């Protein structure tokens, strides 16, 4: 049989054109016995790493890296990298094309190829005119012996003509001919999907797409026997010759760390050591404990062995910059909690506090790069990013990409559109794909949308949608993963423009980088860090101590008491309803308990059913048994229940005989098995391995089930440890400096789980005075004021006022006389606020100190004349009308509408009598009711939450004047009373009290909508899916 190498194939990383995943192309080409396959996406190598790893683990002889380019005013070319240098050229070419155009497009003109692309081979792909334009003769001169004419025959009725004319042309130009496929899909069966993609790309329905579609489905990987019938033998042979001339694999890519971080004359190892020693002296001024010096010594050795010094130095440099600017940061990730990182200031988690082994995080055998993510204050992360760009230049630093893929809803929308369904029909269908449907499109959902799943159109729609799900759609930027290299990055991987101005991204995403061993530093934003830094600042300014993450008093029992009560609204991580409900049962008493707490209340452990065994064992209701000493060593710190990702990997090593490398692959497969499937081989190996080591089958099965449960949500201990520190610090602040803490939270909004209204209510329940917005007192931010007895009160900031700009508010604060404004007119003239913003102040009640009640303030403000350059002051005498003072209810409504919170009575307090008449109790009564009692309770809906893990349960939180009611709505009730569940602002519930371990829930039996009682009160529920 003839040999063949496919030199022109597009994967679905040529977005909306290629109809097969790179892996599919590689596997099919291997199956067909191709000598080689070139993946040549249009001006992109985004898919090449996936193809590369598929080729490595499969049987494909050779994978060629290339790209296709349609030049502006020029021919279409396929460029193949002949060697490593050619690859760098190719990346540069792609980069210059992509950087010259907006996001998602490229622009290359013949001049861009003026250097002749040495070390690359080129195919010219003639268009249907089948001649070389005289303008394009330069390509023959420029590429001379490295240029071929690609002959692509697709049974379109013109093959004979094409072959003849190109042969003549080849003779005229002295260019050899080669067979190529212009492959768009791995099998013919993707034809329909390919047409669909084309129609989506062109924005047409299939019916109208006309000649934009290909006439047939020949652009697939054809069997060699068929190729032999279509192409002359010589052309096929030529393809193999070209493939043979190419000698490059992505494995050759070598990443180098930036070198400038090391002072002249020093080695990276020596410099890191000196920094670590300096840090040790700073951390332990009274003398470094022996244990620590040993640990640091051990870690440095390990780092040196693996050659990771530069990585630690890079992170250290970024963190030092942030520290110099007063930006709070905290590292996390596999290597972040080492003693070295503590000494370098990358993390504040004291290794003594945890007794951690760095090998838990970095392993000598696993050739896996260390991973440090650094969280910065979310509002100041941009400063850090700009520093990185400044320091390394755009040439050497860029963000990693994130490949945005089709999800069920987006796939359904696009496919529906091109099949000619009306916008409403598609929307209706997409709508019925509720967020809890998972990854599959379900026939019953179609029926629910009032469409017939058996009709041919629907069949096509569903069939195509299922295929399209998971297809990449475009590149976006990773949240903060930076790749920094020593040489120009564009020679390593192409760089392109992101949607955000002044941002560039590389064409690979996180997994690709990991696969090739490229290092990335995650520069992430974290709202809680902003809030903590602000709390520290407020405390200092109020005359308190100068706190840092490191000197907040550790292991304070009062703080743990508060945590055990579940009194954690507003703190980091353990503030969600599920977390709050778990705290009184888990009763964390020390730092490591918090580490577990952070990791255990997550979808992974919940799905893997690890929470309850852990709870029972912790409460001494269940004996902890270990099948062997090795397992005891791995699991004893979590009472025999695997909670962390690292434990699963260690178990695989010690109990099932995995090599560390295999364990690492298991970890990655764990993260992706839902998306891609395929834990199969690991399942067999794991269970067989454990059986062979004498563990019982049931134990092995249980471990495997727990691994499955981890799924995408598996949480590494290293992350948990870093988060736990922030949890502790935020709890300490809430406990000891509640006013400063809530003040900082309000000034860092939007963040976290709770609204300003709930945070201030909680603060007042804790006995802190909250004062209203006042133009004569408030700044833009909320602030602290001293009360008569010297304690702190919270003054709400002007930022709370809806419709007031930050600029206007700052002007107001600057122009405010020391004694305060005398009148609204003076305020208007001094601050230059326009009438709309003054109206916003009046609506918020912020003018109360000047003009009495709201109604009067609104009247006054509406009559304010905007000062002009000529006429700057109006002190007009005006008849002032009698206006009714607003009622309490009206004031509350206006408070909520304008500031999102009210310092008056809770709206439900006003309605209490009406509610009592209807038989509703308050949240205050709940603790007195026995578990299992029926009751009626009502409240404002403040959150609705439907976690993917909870099999259709919706959690609703109601609020009344005394506190919260946690509602559990089972699927059946949710469906029956769906309208109430979705729309009610004031919800009444018939239900049953359920008390467990100090946590009270109400199981809903019937929901009622009493929103009409609220009148115009607008309460926004935060809905989480």
């Amino acid at each position: 049989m003839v040999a063949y190498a496919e030199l022109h194939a597009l994967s679905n990383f040529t977005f909306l054109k290629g109809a097969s995943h790179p892996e599919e192309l590689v596997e099919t080409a291997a199956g067909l016995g191709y000598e080689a396959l070139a993946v040549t996406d249009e001006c992109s190598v985004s898919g090449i790493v996936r193809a590369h790893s598929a080729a490595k683990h499969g049987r494909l002889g050779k994978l060629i890296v290339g790209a296709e380019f349609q030049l502006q005013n020029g021919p279409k070319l396929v460029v193949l990298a002949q060697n490593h240098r050619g690859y760098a050229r190719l990346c540069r070419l792609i980069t210059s094309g992509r950087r010259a155009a907006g996001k998602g497009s490229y622009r290359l003109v013949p001049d861009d190829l003026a250097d002749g692309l040495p070390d690359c081979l080129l195919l010219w792909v003639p268009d249907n005119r089948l001649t070389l334009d005289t303008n394009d003769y330069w390509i023959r001169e420029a590429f001379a012996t490295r240029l071929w004419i690609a002959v692509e025959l697709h049974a379109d009725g013109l093959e004979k003509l094409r072959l003849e004319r190109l042969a003549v042309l080849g003779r005229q130009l002295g260019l050899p001919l080669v067979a190529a496929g212009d492959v768009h899909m791995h099998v013919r069966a993707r034809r329909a999907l390919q047409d669909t993609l084309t129609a989506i790309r062109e924005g047409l329905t299939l019916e109208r797409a006309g000649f934009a579609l290909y006439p047939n489905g020949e652009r697939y990987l054809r069997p060699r026997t068929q190729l032999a019938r279509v192409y002359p033998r010589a052309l096929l042979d030529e393809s193999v010759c070209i493939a043979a001339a190419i000698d490059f694999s992505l494995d050759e890519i070598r990443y180098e760390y930036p070198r400038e971080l090391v002072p002249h004359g020093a080695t990276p190892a020596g410099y890191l050591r000196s920094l670590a020693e300096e840090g040790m002296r700073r951390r332990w001024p009274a003398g470094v404990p022996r244990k620590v010096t040993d640990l640091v010594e051990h870690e440095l050795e390990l780092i040196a062995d693996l050659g990771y010094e530069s990585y630690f130095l890079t992170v250290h440099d970024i963190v030092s910059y942030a520290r110099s600017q007063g930006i709070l940061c905290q590292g996390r990730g596999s290597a972040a909690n080492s003693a070295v990182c503590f000494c370098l200031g990358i993390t504040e988690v004291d290794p003594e506090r945890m007794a951690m082994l760095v090998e838990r995080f970095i392993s000598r055998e696993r050739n896996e790069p260390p991973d440090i993510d650094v969280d910065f204050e979310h509002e100041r992360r941009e400063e850090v990013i700009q520093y990185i760009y400044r320091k390394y230049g755009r040439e050497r630093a860029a963000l990693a990409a994130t490949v945005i893929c089709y999800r069920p809803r987006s796939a359904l929308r696009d496919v529906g559109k091109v099949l000619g369904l009306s916008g409403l029909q598609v929307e209706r269908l997409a709508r019925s794909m509720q967020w809890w449907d998972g990854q599959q499109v379900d026939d019953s959902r179609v029926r629910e949308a009032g469409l017939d799943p058996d009709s041919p159109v629907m069949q096509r729609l569903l069939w195509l949608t299922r295929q399209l799900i998971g297809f990449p759609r475009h590149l976006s930027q990773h949240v903060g993963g930076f790749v920094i290299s020593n040489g120009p990055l564009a020679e390593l991987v192409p760089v392109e423009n992101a949607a955000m101005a002044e941002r560039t991204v590389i064409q690979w995403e996180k997994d690709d980088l990991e696969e090739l061993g490229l290092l990335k530093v995650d520069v992430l934003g974290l709202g809680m860090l902003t809030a903590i830094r602000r709390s520290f600042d407020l405390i200092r300014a109020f005359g308190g101590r100068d706190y840092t993450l490191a000197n907040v008093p550790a292991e304070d029992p009062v703080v743990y008491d508060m945590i055990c009560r579940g009194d954690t609204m507003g703190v980091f991580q353990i503030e969600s309803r599920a977390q709050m409900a778990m705290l009184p049962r888990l009763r964390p008493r020390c730092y490591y308990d918090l580490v577990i707490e952070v990791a255990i209340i997550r979808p992974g452990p919940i799905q893997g059913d690890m929470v309850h065994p852990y709870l029972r064992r912790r409460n001494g209701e269940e004996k902890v048994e270990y099948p062997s000493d090795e397992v005891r060593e791995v699991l004893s710190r979590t009472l025999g229940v695997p909670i962390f990702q690292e434990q699963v990997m260690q178990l695989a090593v010690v109990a099932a005989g995995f090599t560390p490398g295999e364990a690492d692959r298991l970890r990655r497969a764990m993260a992706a098995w839902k998306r891609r499937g395929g834990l199969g081989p690991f399942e067999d190996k794991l269970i067989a391995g454990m059986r062979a080591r004498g563990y019982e089958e049931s134990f092995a099965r249980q471990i495997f089930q727990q691994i499955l449960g981890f799924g995408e949500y598996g949480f590494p201990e290293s992350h948990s440890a870093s988060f736990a520190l922030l949890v502790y610090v935020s709890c300490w602040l809430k406990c000891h400096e509640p006013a400063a803490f809530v003040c900082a939270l309000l000034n860092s909004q939007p963040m976290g789980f709770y609204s300003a209204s709930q945070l201030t209510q909680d603060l007042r329940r804790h006995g802190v005075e909250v004062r209203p917005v006042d133009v004569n007192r408030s700044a833009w931010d909320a602030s602290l004021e001293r009360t008569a007895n010297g304690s702190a009160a919270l003054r709400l900031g002007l930022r709370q006022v809806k419709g007031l700009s930050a600029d206007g508010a700052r002007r107001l604060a600057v122009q405010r006389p020391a004694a305060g404004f005398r009148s609204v007119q003076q305020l208007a003239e001094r601050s230059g606020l326009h009438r709309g913003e003054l109206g916003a102040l009046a609506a918020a009640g912020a003018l109360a100190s000047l003009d009495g009640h709201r109604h009067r303030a609104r009247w006054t403000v509406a009559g304010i004349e905007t000062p002009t350059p000529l006429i700057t002051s109006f002190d007009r005498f005006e008849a002032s009308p009698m206006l009714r003072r607003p009622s309490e209810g009206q004031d509350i409504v206006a408070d909520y509408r304008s500031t999102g919170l009210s310092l008056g009575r809770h709206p439900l307090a006003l309605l209490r009598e009406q509610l009592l008449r209807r038989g509703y109790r308050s949240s205050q009564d709940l603790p007195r009711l026995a578990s299992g009692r029926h009751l009626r309770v009502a409240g404002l809906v403040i959150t609705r939450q439907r976690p993917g893990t909870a099999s259709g349960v919706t959690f609703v939180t109601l609020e009344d004047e005394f506190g919260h009611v946690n509602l559990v709505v089972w699927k059946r009730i949710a469906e029956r009373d769906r309208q109430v569940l979705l729309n009610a602002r004031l919800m009444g519930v018939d239900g049953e009290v359920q008390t467990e371990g100090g946590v009270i829930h109400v199981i809903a039996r019937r929901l009622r909508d009493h929103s009409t009682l609220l009148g115009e009160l607008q309460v926004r529920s935060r809905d989480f899916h």
Partner: protein
Amino acid sequence: MVTPAKTPASLRDAGPTSAVTRRRKPPPAQQSLALTPAAGTAPAAGLPRAAATRQLWLCLYLPGLPLAALQCAAAEPVDAVFDEQQGLRRILLATPAAAAAGVHPGLSVNAALALVPGLQLAARCPAREQRSLQRLAGWAERYTSFVVVEPPATLLLEIAASLRLFGGLQALRRQLLRELDSQGFAAQAAIAPTPLAATWLARAGQRRCIVRPDRLSGTLSTLPVACLDWPAAVTDALYGMGIRCIGDCLRLPRAGFARRFGAARLLQLDRALGRLPDPRDKYSLAERFCADRDLDEEQADSELLLRLCEQLLLQLERFLLARQLAVQRLQFVFYHLQEPATSLALGSARAERSMAQWLELLKIRFERVALPAPVISIRLRAGRGQPLTATSGRLGFAGEGRPGVPIAHLVERLAARVGERAVHGVATVAEHRPDYAWRLRRACDDTPRCRTEPHPGHAHRAPQLLADMRRTGSLLLQRPLWMLDAPAPLACRDGRPCYEGALELRSGPERIETGWWDEAGIARDYYVALNPAGVHLWVFRDRTGDGGWYLHGIFG
């Protein structure tokens, strides 16, 4: 020179409301002022009293018009109508049944569909609403000679003179509402001496009849400000000051009110209360040309009749010229004394107003139509007037030849001669399937372009199509000029297709497999074949079913 800070009085006089304030002494601060009849001496006295002849206005407010207008026209029942604001589609109105299921106005379309998956939704169509309103205005004219159309959803009828004829206020109102109901519309009706008062009462849903002007202010005072139809910003501001009803507004100082909310609103209140006249425009029907020519005696001479028609056409031309319109359809009706009238409809390929064109068409038709009897009267009725689109003339360069008859005129003449249905054009369609690559196009398309044309996308512009064909190489492809209506199966001998002898395949295959998205998907290999008689045929082998051979076209 005005120095504002020091002389506030001068500023006040220069203000927009000076006409009102100047006549008054500066009022004491806390006194309630101005708008109530008792206090409003100065402004009210200076204005003419409400019109001398008593007027009585009946307002029909149709809150459900957006839905009702659609339901009248739609083939399928509509449950709710939505409109789009800032890219958000929100429910505007819903039927009671849909409302009971929770589909409330303001709900987003997505949320509505989440609630009721089978909901039948339609987009709001303001044009249709206005047509409905116009139609209702025409209907209302049978009750009064003075009907006012107030878009978007209000009709005002001046009924003072009609009361006696229709048996009094209540009887008239009942009859109006009943007839509205039978046409599928529900209205809120109110009666008051001023049009604004009637409108506001109707909008507020009050069924009150106010006949005496002195009762106006008392009743209006109780209405909420929301029924004033003022912009949301104004009503919100009023609301923020604790002002809930018109009475609250009337208690405000006049000057202060005008400064904050505009003098126009103040005048509106005055008009509603009858302190200012409120003249309105009477509704009148849109014009359509229709003219008759009566003959003194019966005439059968076609020459003479044509001349008379020409005169009518001349009238039409003047009519159209004055209005900058053109028409695409005409109808001549010839009345006979004994026989039923003969009607001749004329259509043209594009909107025309030139008499000469129409006359020529008429002549052609006249040659073929035999009038059954002599004519006593001729009527010319023109179709819908369309805005005229001007065409630019051509510069007559030497060598370009004599400008020929435009093809459109040829088509018109042909159509006039053999009937419109017999004249077609052929259009190419961008489609790979040979059966769908072309279509017939009506030559004289007179109906306004419908949005749901069967294949609008196929109406490819010619240059674009050509470019596409060049790009895809389909210009190079061989296609027979004569295509069979449906492919004809071919017999096979020894695996070779036969048509009057075994076929020799000369070129191919050209593989066409596409169209999977409708019920006519194909997968075929086309060949050019030669039969023993030397005829070139276009045949294909079907790749889907049994792999049979078919004849699809003949090259000649």
